[in-house]
């Protein structure tokens, strides 16, 4: 089956604009994650959904960041009033409940550049 897909792959935004990044997880995966990866760094956790419930949003850096997964499938990460420090690759991952180690399958990412 298809893997995790993300769109757009590249996004350029002017400082102050709002952006929306989309993630399509693997069909049937109940868990969905968003990570932020700055240039030359490892990914950092932003938020986690189980079905439509957002169970952990401890990694969201400010109230400008908002994520939703209204029907428990596709998710959107929204960044309001973008700033230069928001420039990064945003990775989405999904996992099923089994096996117990919950392997996360990653999408190709969306590279956001704020000018």
């Amino acid at each position, binding site marked *: 089956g298809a*893997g995790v897909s993300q769109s757009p792959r590249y996004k350029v935004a002017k400082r102050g604009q709002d952006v929306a990044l989309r993630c399509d997880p693997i069909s049937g995966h109940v*868990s969905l*994650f968003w990570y932020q990866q700055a240039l030359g760094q*490892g990914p950092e956790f932003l938020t*986690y959904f189980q079905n439509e419930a957002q169970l952990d949003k401890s990694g969201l850096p400010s109230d400008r960041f908002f994520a939703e997964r209204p029907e428990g499938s596709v998710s959107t990460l929204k960044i309001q009033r973008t700033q230069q420090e928001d420039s990064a690759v945003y990775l989405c991952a999904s996992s099923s409940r089994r096996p117990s180690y919950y*392997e*996360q399958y990653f999408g*190709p990412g969306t590279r956001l550049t704020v000018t």
Partner: protein
Amino acid sequence: AQTVTQSQPEMSVQEAETVTLSCTYDTSESDYYLFWYKQPPSRQMILVIRQEAYKQQNATENRFSVNFQKAAKSFSLKISDSQLGDAAMYFCAYRSARTQKLVFGQGTRLTINP
């Protein structure tokens, strides 16, 4: 908070040789999982190998194996018979058994010399 440290920003190895990537982590928990992920230039992260903390035996997946030292909180990755396709960023990651979020290290860029 848990942290993961990869002290080697870059490593290189001759094709067909063996290379070891280092990773240490800090946690007060006893039940957790450790992972090595590979991120080729195309950026899609791929799981290479995993280790459950409760298992004493080191995990092995074909040419990839780990040396898991729980007391020392060390989790190194050994790649045997290196191939050109192994060139990538490698990330060590930790996951508590209580949560599902991954905590990543800074990564090691591996170059394979033909």
